[in-house]
C-alpha cells in the first residue's frame, strides 16, 4: 500500500464543504461519489472514455468563471468544488429541461421507466413539472427501429449521450453506430449497410440511460420494478461472467410462476468489468423453457410420469440388478461441466460409493465461437471445476469417449446434467445409448438423449441452486439460488443423496456450503475455501 502511495499522488480537495483525498487523475464525479455525493450524469460511464456532452454534471469550482463538467475535470490540490450551489443546480435544471425538450414524456409506454436516468432526475429536485415547450412541436423521429438482431432503437427517446457509440468503439471494438445530422436533428444511426450486431450489443441497452435502446428479448415483457435481482454466474461459457438474475415477483391473478426475465451483468473487474455477451445474456431461456418437471419412467416404450418415491424405488431395483448381475464394471457414470462443483463432487462420491464403478468421467459440452474479450470457446461454465475435482476414470475404468461409443461394455449408464450428443458424434452416441439396459438421465431440460432414457429425473437449473463454478482461469465463484426449483425438480446433490439413502447408504443431507467444505478438505488446491471466503466476487485459486 505504501509503495502505491508513493507512485500515485494524492490530492486534497473539498466538495460541498467536505474535505477528501483523491488519487491524482480521478475526476471530480468519481471523487464525489466516493464520499457519497451523487452528481447527475448521463454520458459519463466509468468504463468508457469521457465525452462530457450531456452537461448534466456541471459543477462550480472556486476560481473558475465557468461551470466545469465533473466527469471530465480531474481533481487538483486545494480545489474547492460545490455541486449544490445555486449556479450548479440551476445549470443542471437547465440541462434537464433541454434534454426533455424533444424527449417524449411517455414513461408509461417507455420500457426504461423505472430504471431511467431522465425519469429519476425529472422526479427529483431538478424536475420542472410544467413543460415550457409544446408537445406538438417536438421533433418527430423514427421509433421502434430494429437496428440489430437484439436491439430496438427509438430515436425520439435518445438523448445523444453517445455511450452506445463509445461502447461499440472501445469495448466491442466494432464501430457500427454513429450520429448523423446536426443540432437537435442529430440522431444515432447505424452505419450504412451495417447492423448493431456485435456479440456484445445488448450491453448498449444496459448503458443507455434512457429508453432509446431496448432489448428485443426483454422489451415490454415486464416492468423492472417487478423484478428481484440475485447475483450469480453466467452459465453460457467458461469465462464465468458475473450476472444478476432478474426474476419477477409473484403475481396473484393467474398465480403466475416465478421465471427469469433477463440476466444483467454484475460488475466484477477481475472477470467481466460490467459487461456481458449477448449469447450469455440470453442463456437464461433454458430455465424457463422445455423443463423436465416430474420424474419419468419408460414403460412399454413410453415415458410415463411417476412420483419421486416410485422413481427412486425403480432406480434402486434396477441399479442393484445390474450391479449384482453384471458387476460394477458394467455401469458408467457421467458428470457434467455444466453442473456445480458441489453436484459433481457428490456425483463422484456417488459413483465410487454407491455405484462402486471406476467408469467415471464428465462431459465437456458444446464448444463454439470465442474471442479475446469475454466469450470463451468452451460453452460450459465449469469444465475447470470438473477437472480440478479429478472427475475421471478410476483404475481399470473407461472414459466418456469409450462409454459413448457403440463398442462400450456398459449395461447401465447414469448421466447427470449433460447431453452427450453435444460433445460426441450423434450416431455413435445414439447407438451406444440404445444398447443400454438402463439409462438414467438427471436433467433440467429435455434433450436429445432423453429418447433413450429409461428413467429421467428432473433436476434444478443453475438459477435454482446454490453452488460454485470455476471459470477457465481457475476463479471460484458462487452461484446463488435465485428462485425455488420448479415443483418436483430437485437440485442434483439432493437427488443423489436421496438415491444413496434409498439404496441403504448412510448419506447425510448436506447443504452446498457443507459440501464445499468437504471439497476444500479433499482437494489441496481449494484448501481452506468456504462460501464466506469466496464471497460474491469469487476468489482466484
Amino acid at each position: 500500500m505504501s509503495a502505491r502511495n508513493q507512485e500515485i499522488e494524492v490530492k486534497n480537495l473539498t466538495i460541498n464543504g467536505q474535505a477528501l483525498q483523491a488519487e491524482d487523475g480521478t475526476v471530480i464525479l468519481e471523487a464525489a461519489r466516493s464520499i457519497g455525493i451523487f452528481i447527475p450524469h448521463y454520458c459519463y460511464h466509468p468504463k468508457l472514455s469521457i465525452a462530457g456532452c450531456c452537461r448534466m454534471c456541471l459543477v462550480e469550482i472556486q476560481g473558475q468563471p465557468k461551470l466545469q463538467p465533473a466527469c471530465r475535470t480531474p481533481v487538483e490540490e486545494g480545489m474547492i468544488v460545490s455541486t449544490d450551489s445555486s449556479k450548479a443546480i440551476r445549470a443542471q435544471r437547465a440541462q434537464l429541461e433541454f434534454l426533455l425538450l424533444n424527449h417524449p414524456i411517455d414513461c408509461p409506454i417507455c420500457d426504461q421507466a423505472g430504471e431511467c436516468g431522465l425519469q429519476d432526475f425529472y422526479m427529483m429536485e431538478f424536475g420542472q413539472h410544467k413543460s415550457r415547450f409544446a408537445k406538438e412541436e417536438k421533433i418527430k423521429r423514427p421509433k421502434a427501429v430494429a437496428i440489430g438482431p437484439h436491439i430496438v432503437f427509438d430515436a425520439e427517446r435518445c438523448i445523444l449521450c453517445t455511450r452506445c457509440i463509445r461502447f461499440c468503439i472501445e469495448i466491442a471494438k466494432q464501430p457500427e453506430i454513429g450520429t448523423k445530422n446536426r443540432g437537435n436533428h442529430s440522431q444515432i444511426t447505424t452505419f450504412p449497410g451495417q447492423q448493431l450486431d456485435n456479440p456484445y450489443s445488448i450491453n448498449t441497452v444496459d448503458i443507455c440511460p434512457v429508453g432509446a435502446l431496448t432489448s428485443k428479448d426483454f422489451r415490454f415483457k415486464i416492468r423492472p420494478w417487478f423484478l428481484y435481482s440475485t447475483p450469480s454466474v453466467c452459465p453460457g461459457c467458461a469465462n464465468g461472467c458475473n450476472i444478476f438474475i432478474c426474476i419477477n415477483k409473484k403475481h396473484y391473478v393467474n398465480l403466475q410462476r416465478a421465471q427469469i426475465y433477463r440476466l444483467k451483468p454484475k460488475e466484477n473487474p477481475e472477470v467481466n468489468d460490467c459487461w456481458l455477451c449477448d449469447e450469455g445474456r440470453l442463456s437464461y431461456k433454458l430455465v424457463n423453457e422445455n423443463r423436465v418437471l416430474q420424474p419419468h419412467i419408460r414403460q412399454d416404450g413410453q415415458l410415463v410420469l411417476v412420483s419421486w418415491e416410485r422413481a427412486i424405488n425403480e432406480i434402486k431395483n434396477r441399479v442393484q440388478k445390474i450391479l449384482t448381475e453384471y458387476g460394477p464394471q458394467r455401469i458408467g457414470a457421467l458428470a457434467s461441466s455444466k453442473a456445480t462443483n458441489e453436484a459433481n463432487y457428490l456425483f463422484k462420491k456417488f459413483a465410487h460409493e454407491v455405484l462402486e464403478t471406476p467408469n467415471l468421467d464428465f462431459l465437456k459440452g458444446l464448444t463454439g465461437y470465442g474471442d479475446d474479450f469475454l466469450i470463451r470457446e468452451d460453452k460450459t461454465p465449469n469444465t475447470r471445476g470438473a477437472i480440478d475435482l479429478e472427475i475421471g476414470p478410476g483404475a481399470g475404468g473407461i472414459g466418456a469417449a469409450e462409454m459413448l461409443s457403440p463398442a462400450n461394455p456398459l449395461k447401465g449408464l447414469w448421466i447427470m446434467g449433460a447431453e452427450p450428443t453435444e460433445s460426441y458424434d450423434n450416431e455413435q452416441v445414439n447407438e451406444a445409448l440404445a444398447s443400454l439396459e438402463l439409462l438414467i438421465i438427471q436433467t433440467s431440460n429435455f434433450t436429445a438423449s432423453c429418447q433413450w432414457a429409461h428413467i429421467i429425473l428432473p433436476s434444478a437449473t443453475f438459477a435454482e441452486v446454490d453452488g460454485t463454478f470455476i471459470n477457465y482461469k481457475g476463479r471460484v465463484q458462487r452461484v446463488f439460488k435465485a428462485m425455488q426449483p420448479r415443483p418436483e425438480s430437485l437440485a442434483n446433490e439432493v437427488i443423489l443423496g436421496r438415491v444413496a439413502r434409498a439404496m441403504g447408504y448412510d448419506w447425510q443431507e448436506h447443504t452446498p456450503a457443507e459440501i464445499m467444505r468437504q471439497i476444500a478438505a479433499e482437494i489441496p488446491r481449494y484448501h481452506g475455501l468456504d462460501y464466506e471466503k469466496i464471497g460474491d466476487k469469487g476468489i482466484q485459486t
Partner: protein
Amino acid sequence: MEKLLTKNIHLPDSHKIETYRATGGYKALAKALGEYSPEDIIDIVKRSGLRGRGGAGFPAGVKWSFMPKGTERPKYLICNADEGEPGTFKDRVILEKDPHQLLEGIIIASYAIGAQQAYLYIRGEFNLAIQRCEAAIREAYEHNFLGQNIMGKYYSLDILLPIGAGAYICGEETSLMESIEGKKGWPRIRPPFPANRGLFGCPTTINNVETLANVPHIIERGVEWYTSIGTDKNHGPKLYCVSGPVKRPGVYELPMGTPLPEIIFDHAGGLFEGRQLKGVIPGGSSTPILRPDEIQVNMDFDSLAKAGTMLGSAGIIVLDHTMCIVRSTLILANFYHHESCGQCTPCREGTGWLENILHHIEEGHGRPGDTDLLIEICDNIMGNAICPLGDAAAMAIGPAVKKYRDEFDYHLTNKQCLPETRK
C-alpha cells in the same frame, strides 16, 4: 494610415508570387530564417502584442510559446481559413487577393513553433480562394519557400490544404481538427488544450488568417513600428468588414481602436438616405448588439469588452430602422440552430428552442413571457456548452432581446411588426 495587409489587393495579379515578391514579399521570411531563432520570433511576436484576429483576441506569441519544447511528437500549425461568421469577410480578401502574404506568415509561424507540417483549412464555399491558395502553395514550393530546406536553410515545411465541407462549427478550432482528421466536426472538450493534444493528438497551434498575415510585417519592420499602430494593448492594423444599409459596405483596413462611428459614417459613407440607425453588431453575428446610443466605442478588444460586447471578427453589421429586430434575431437563431453540431445538450436543444420561440413571436403566435424565456434560455446556454457556438448564439440573441425588449413586447401584444418595419 499606410495599408499593410491590403496594400497589394488592388494590383493586377496580386495573387501571383511575382507581384508579391515585387512589393517586398518573402523578405520577412528570409529575415526570420536567416537572423532569428524560433525563440526570437516568438519573443518578437510576443512583444509586438499581436492578438488573435479570429475573435478571442488571445496574444499570438503567448499561444505559440505554449507549444511543448523538446517533444518527439510532431507539431502542427493550422491556419483557420474557415471564415463562416455572418457579417465577416475579411480573410477572404487575403485568401483571394494576397495568399502569399498568408503563406509567408504560416511559414514563419511554423518555423517559430517548430512545425514541419502546416494545414490551411479553408472554407469549402471559397472557390476562388481555394484555387488561388492552391496555386500560391504550388508557386511557393516552386520557389523553395516550402518543401525541403526552405531557402537553403535547415528547415522544412509542407502545407496541406484541407477543404471544409460547409459546417460553421468547423471554424471552431477543435472541431476543425476533428474535421482534418476525417471525423464529424464535433468540438472537443478542453482540457487538454490543442497546444498539448491537438491534431492527431499532437501539439498544435491554430491561428486565424489575418493573425498570420500580420506576422511577416512584424518581422520585417520590427516591434516598435508595429506597436506604434493602434491603441494601448491593441496594436497593429485591423480589417473591418462593414455590411448592412451603408453606402459603401466592404473591408476597411484601419488601425486597431478606430472609433466605430468613424468606420460607419466616414469610411463606409454612412447609412442610406432617410434611414436611421437602429443598432450595430460590432464583431460578427456572435457578438452582442449595440444600440445607437452605445456606438461611441473604439473598435478594439478591450474597449468593446468594456462596452459589453466583443470585437470578434470585426464584422460590423449595421441595422437601420426599417429592419425588424425580431426577424433579424430569428435569422441569427435559425443560423445557429442550423449550425449547432448536436453534441452537447444546451447548444443542441437550446438553439432549436430559441429559434422555435422567435419563430412564434415573428409569426404572431408568441405567448406572454416569451421574452423572459428567451433571456433565460440564453443564460442557461451561456457558458455551459462544450464550445463557443452555444455562447455565440446566446450572445447574439440574449442582448438583442434585452436591448430591444419593447419591440419584442410589441410583437407579443400586437402580433405583428412595428409599422415602419413591415414589408
